């Protein structure tokens, strides 16, 4: 995934660049609106991370001039939580927005969602190491053993399996499994994960469902654990 970061705050730009590079993205960075506009217009990116407040040319102006020539997906970062900024960003053609302070996991999940749009492959069988999911029959098997799951547990497992290897934040999980679109302070997701883990991992030797403290959860087969 080729990402362009347009952000004047050095520290933010640096960690975003490092984080995204380590996630396997190729990253361009611009520290002001003018450079950002040049890179955005003259080079091709899969997605652009655009700060709303920029020196030289602000994010909204940049977005407008970019939309006149191309449709690269754009996720806006706004410091102010005003509805005006959000509405304005979306009206000018932003595909998504995040309000600072945001978490990196959240940003990465949104970037992936934006670039995945339209080219999602609809597999009916998913496999994570020894775990098999049959989406049509709504059945989960591990090492040949049938695992009994409730509908929500199955939906949660399906999400984790579809995005295996990817850290999913609690917010993303609540959004995609329960359709709750807000930062919840409840521990619903933690409890649900705990119960799911008891069913898919506890009876077996190697755990598949891992907690990344402070970030979220990931389903993957890890060697040597």
């Amino acid at each position, binding site marked *: 995934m080729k990402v362009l970061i347009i952000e004047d705050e050095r520290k933010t730009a640096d960690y975003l660049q490092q984080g995204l590079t380590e996630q396997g993205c190729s990253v361009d960075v611009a520290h002001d609106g003018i450079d950002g506009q040049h890179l955005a217009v003259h080079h091709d990116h899969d997605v652009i991370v655009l700060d709303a407040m920029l020196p030289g040319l602000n994010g909204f102006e940049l977005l407008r001039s970019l939309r006149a020539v191309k449709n690269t997906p754009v996720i806006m970062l706004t410091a102010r939580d005003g509805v005006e900024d959000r509405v304005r960003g979306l009206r000018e053609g932003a595909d998504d927005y995040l309000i600072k302070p945001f*978490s990196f996991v959240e940003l990465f999940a949104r970037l992936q969602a934006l670039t995945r749009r339209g080219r999602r492959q609809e597999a009916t069988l998913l496999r994570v190491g020894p775990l098999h999911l049959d989406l049509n029959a709504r059945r989960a098997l591990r090492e040949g053993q049938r695992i009994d799951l409730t509908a929500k547990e199955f939906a949660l497992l399906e999400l984790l399996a579809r995005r295996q290897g990817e850290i999913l934040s609690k917010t993303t999980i609540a959004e995609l499994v*329960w359709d*709750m679109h807000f930062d919840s*302070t*409840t*521990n619903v997701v933690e409890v649900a994960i705990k119960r799911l883990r008891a069913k898919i991992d506890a009876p077996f030797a190697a755990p598949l469902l891992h907690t990344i403290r402070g970030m979220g959860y990931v389903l993957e087969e890890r060697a040597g654990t």
Partner: protein
Amino acid sequence: MRLAAMFSAVALASFALIGFAAHELLARDLARHQQELVEDRIEDLSYMLVRGRSTDLMDRVHEKIAALTGDGRTQYWLWSEDPAWRYGTDARHMAEVTRASRGVLLMTAGTGAEQLAVAGRDIAATAVHPPLRLVAGVDTASIDQIFRDFEIWLLPAILCGALLIAALSYRVAGVGLRPVAQLSAEARRIGPDTRDQRLTMSALPQELAEFGSSFNSALDRLDAAYTQLESFNADVAHELRTPLANLIGQTQVTLARERSAPELREVLQSNLEELERLRTIVSDMLFLARAERGERVSRGVEASLAREIGKTVEFFGVLLEEAGMEVDVEGDARATVETSLFHRAVTNLLQNAIQHAPRGARITARIEGTEDGAAISVSNPSEPVPPEHLPRLFDRFYRVDASRPNSDASHGLGLAIVKAIAAMHGGRVFAHSQSGVTTVGFTLGRGGNGGAVS
């Protein structure tokens, strides 16, 4: 100044009206006076013509006319078919003109070029003379002079009067508004540092007393809000201080020695958890600020509230199961809501209920259609909440039990957020606690039709 100008405008208008009326009255009076004057002149001569029987009547008439016209202001004409009984130049014309019109006629005639008031009378034939037409004219110059004089003086008099009133009213307004000037001087002295100052009510005249007291109560309300804001800032600082202190301390301790990678990871993870908590608090504070600025929902859709609450209850499924609790959803209504915000409000209410209800309790979520929207409430069995705490439950960082530790699940903003979401939907919050059941809820204002379904 403005007041004085208004007064003089009013004075000018009324003076002009009075002047106009006086003018009209005078004109009418003078006209009548003129008519009487002419008629007197006619009477003076017609008496002689009607009664006179002597043969030299015409000579006596001439004498009489000479006497009467001596003042130079009166003229006579006499017309008859008989040339012996004629007097004055153009007598025939005068006779015809006066006969053609009734009453007094204003015209230029006779010897001078003056304006005359003219009237005539027919005198029947007698033994000594044939039928006659007697015409008399009186010079109007003196009357016109009176009239002109009046007109000349009227305008300056009106203007002078208006100016006088302007000057007087400026003074009077100054005296009358002195309490206002005093009030504004007092108001100028009120600032953030002198918030307890109020306008002095005792010296105020009655018409200003009401203004003064509403101004003072506005100050009271602002003062209360200001105080709340101050304590709120203190609360925020307090809430942020603990996690910040942990972060700094823990990082310092870690960096003071060589640490292995797993140890460092452990610290970073712990720090991240603290930071996430800080982020949540800041995001929630920003959200509350949005509501406080009076922001209303912009992406509302009409929805069945029972269905949306059902989704939220489903979200809580595992937590309810763990706590052995169940939620009954009663009633339904349709209302226009921004679903993500509505879910958030209901989530916070349910979370609050689960926290305060004993294990195995039944929680009731009730929806009632109201006249202008809907009311949503969540009831749970609980320890009674003292009445003085009820209205403050929705304050930020407010805890009924001040000693209760800050748990991960709640940072004291849950119900404040419910209140903000209610406000964003044009509603408000309510809470009551009686016979072992605590109910907390909010209303939605008019947005959709909000009619009750059951």
